[in-house]
């Protein structure tokens, strides 16, 4: 089966500009996650969707970050305006189940964002 798709793979912007990332999860996966991975650290969850509803966005900096999954399939993550500290890899993951502890997440290749 096809994996999680993300685009673009790389993006370079200047601070205060806007940027958007796109994710297409594995077909049939109802749960979608966005993570931020700063260089040298493990991924940190930003937001979790179950179908088109937000389950957890407690670590999303809502003053500048937004995400949507309008039709319950693909999703976009936006940063507006970007700051230098937003430089990171943004990973999308999906899973077939929700509410279960034993829930394998499948990760996409990520988008590497550099803010100058």
């Amino acid at each position, binding site marked *: 089966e096809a994996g999680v798709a993300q685009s673009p793979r790389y993006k370079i912007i200047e601070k205060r500009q806007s940027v958007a990332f796109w994710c297409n999860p594995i077909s049939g996966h109802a749960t979608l996650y966005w993570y931020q991975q700063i260089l*040298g*650290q493990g*991924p940190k969850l930003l937001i979790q969707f179950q179908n088109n509803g937000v389950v*957890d966005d407690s670590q999303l900096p809502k003053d500048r970050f937004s995400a949507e999954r309008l039709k319950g399939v693909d999703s976009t993550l936006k940063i507006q305006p970007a700051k230098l500290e937003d430089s990171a890899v943004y990973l999308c993951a999906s899973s077939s189940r929700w509410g279960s*502890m034993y829930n*394998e997440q499948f*990760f996409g290749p990520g988008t590497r964002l550099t803010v100058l």
Partner: protein
Amino acid sequence: GESVGLHLPTLSVQEGDNSIINCAYSNSASDYFIWYKQESGKGPQFIIDIRSNMDKRQGQRVTVLLNKTVKHLSLQIAATQPGDSAVYFCAENTRGESSYKLIFGSGTRLLVRP
């Protein structure tokens, strides 16, 4: 190639030797743990998992050990191969307000010398 992390702890092993990667977790209430492998330019890939009612679980060339008393996990890779070179993360699946979520550790870079 693209670097996943520049300041990660690094374990360097000779090809064919066994590798042991360690991880401390934070939440004593966590019941499920996963090891991920992340190669340069790729997302994390599931390797093996273990539930809290187990002390040990074996896969193909990999073994995970869990010590709940000291909140410690280890990943053992037998007969390490060049393709095992990557950054390894442990993750604990913890209960949030309305769902479970993964909390990742800081990672260890494994370098395999030919």
